[in-house]
């Protein structure tokens, strides 16, 4: 058994005045309140961009000493955009195996220290650097190919796909930790400058810094926010060129299948998934069979995944699109958000009476995929 007993998030933004260690320490302190170092068995840090942009090696140890936890065991987990949930998975394994009874997971990354053109180069490393990564795939090149293919294959128009970012912005308005807290119309998405056509700037995430922390414990159901029931994952193809059907995220399908074999998942009320680009959010909904293939965008446009809709509420935080995507921290934000939803304490858009939640993390176009299932303890 593993329980989420404490969470904290730093608002995603350009924190020019704070470094990686400072952001991580602030999030950790808030999640742990006044815990002594002896009360902690492990610190698992997730960070990805820090490594790509050669800022600091052995980051977890430096975060440990900086945050007042010198002596505590620490390790860093890197799995590209899926680092955060990968770290949560490692923490849960430590608890389940009995090696630890209390683990702090901290996700942190800073994008604002680097010029945008450099950030684009680092983002291309989510993909195979010896394969398609030798070309200027930039930010969204591969996702752009997938989006056009989706539109052509399923005869979905660009405007229908623009309802996703509009929903994300609408959801983020109440989230104090979201970077973009203003509404946009679907039409506005089409008018925005192109990023990787047909993807526009408003189909992608803002470049912000963030840190989030979780305390995971083996016992302590009494004061827990939620139970972390299971975390599953699967690796996938190194390129969309190799997948028979590039519009299927085969790694996520497999991870989800593993999860449902392990646990009986009841009606899911709330999901935080990985919408690095509009098309990724749409393909993930279809991989989880929450919509028929080719139909997810249309379902989004008629409110199926909105609060009060027929389906589960998807990304009440605003998702990567509007909350933001501080790469290695994102998966930790998602687990914190869903835990707070299940406890009825999320400070943004609340999903009332939610008892079952999922979080989904994918690197690139699916080189790996992680999925977590959380349950209410109320």
């Amino acid at each position: 058994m593993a329980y989420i007993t404490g969470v904290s998030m730093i608002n995603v933004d350009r924190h020019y005045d704070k470094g990686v260690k400072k952001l991580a320490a602030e999030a950790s302190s808030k999640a742990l309140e006044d815990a002594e170092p002896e009360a902690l068995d492990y610190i698992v840090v997730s960070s990805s961009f820090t490594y790509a942009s050669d800022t600091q090696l052995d980051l977890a140890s430096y975060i440990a000493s900086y945050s007042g936890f010198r002596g505590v065991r620490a390790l860093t987990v890197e799995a590209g955009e899926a680092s955060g949930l990968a770290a949560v998975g490692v923490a849960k394994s430590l608890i389940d195996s009995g090696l630890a009874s209390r683990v702090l997971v901290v996700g942190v990354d800073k994008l604002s220290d680097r010029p945008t053109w450099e950030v684009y180069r680092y983002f291309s490393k989510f993909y195979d650097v010896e394969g398609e990564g030798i070309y200027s795939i930039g930010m969204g090149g591969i996702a752009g190919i997938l989006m056009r293919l989706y539109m052509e294959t399923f005869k979905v128009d660009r405007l229908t796909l623009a309802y996703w970012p509009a929903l994300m912005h609408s959801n983020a308005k109440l989230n104090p930790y979201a970077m973009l807290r203003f509404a946009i119309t679907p039409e506005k998405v089409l008018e925005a400058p192109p990023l990787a056509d047909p993807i526009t700037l408003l189909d992608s995430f803002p470049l912000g810094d963030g840190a989030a922390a979780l305390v995971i414990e083996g016992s302590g159901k009494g004061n827990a926010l939620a139970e972390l029931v299971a975390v599953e994952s699967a690796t996938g193809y190194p390129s969309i060129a190799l997948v028979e059907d590039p519009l299927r995220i085969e790694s996520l399908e497999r991870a989800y299948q593993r999860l449902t074999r392990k646990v009986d998942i009841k009606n899911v009320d709330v999901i935080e998934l990985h919408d690095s680009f509009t098309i990724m959010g749409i393909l993930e909904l279809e991989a989880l069979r929450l919509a028929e293939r080719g139909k997810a965008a249309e379902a989004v446009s008629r409110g199926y995944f909105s609060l009060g809709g027929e389906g589960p509420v998807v990304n009440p935080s605003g998702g990567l699109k509007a909350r933001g995507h501080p790469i290695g921290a994102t998966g930790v934000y998602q687990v914190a958000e869903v835990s707070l939803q299940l406890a009825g304490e999320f400070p943004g858009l609340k999903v009332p009476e939610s008892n079952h939640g999922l979080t989904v993390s994918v690197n690139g176009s699916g080189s790996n995929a992680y999925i977590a299932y959380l349950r209410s303890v109320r």
Partner: protein
Amino acid sequence: MTGLSVPAVWRGRIHRYRLVAGKCNSCGRIHYPPSHSCPHCGSRGLAEVELPRMGRLVSYSIVYSVPSESRSKAPVILGLVDLGVARVISEITDAGPEDISVGMQVEAVFRRITEDGETGVLVYGVKFRPVKEA
């Protein structure tokens, strides 16, 4: 381009110059670039095959969000090209966004892929260009 080292660029030159792919002795499927094992079935029994140089554009993206070393040639057209026996991701060259459409015929040409001002690395390899109608 992602800051590959000179030796890394050199190691990949043959498959990049000649479009050499891996063919699986077990399942028969072909993958590019060649891997240590078949990405489909995991078999390590592979042979090298040269890919056809004519194909069809399955989908594409016009990429504006490129790293600094590619800014002068932005936007870059990135395509998913079907060569019949395999698909590849490549850059589409000798054409502007207005010349491109899904389903069009493309052919492989040898080009400079990138010039990394920071590391001094020049990467050459295959790109695809639209086939002119006769």
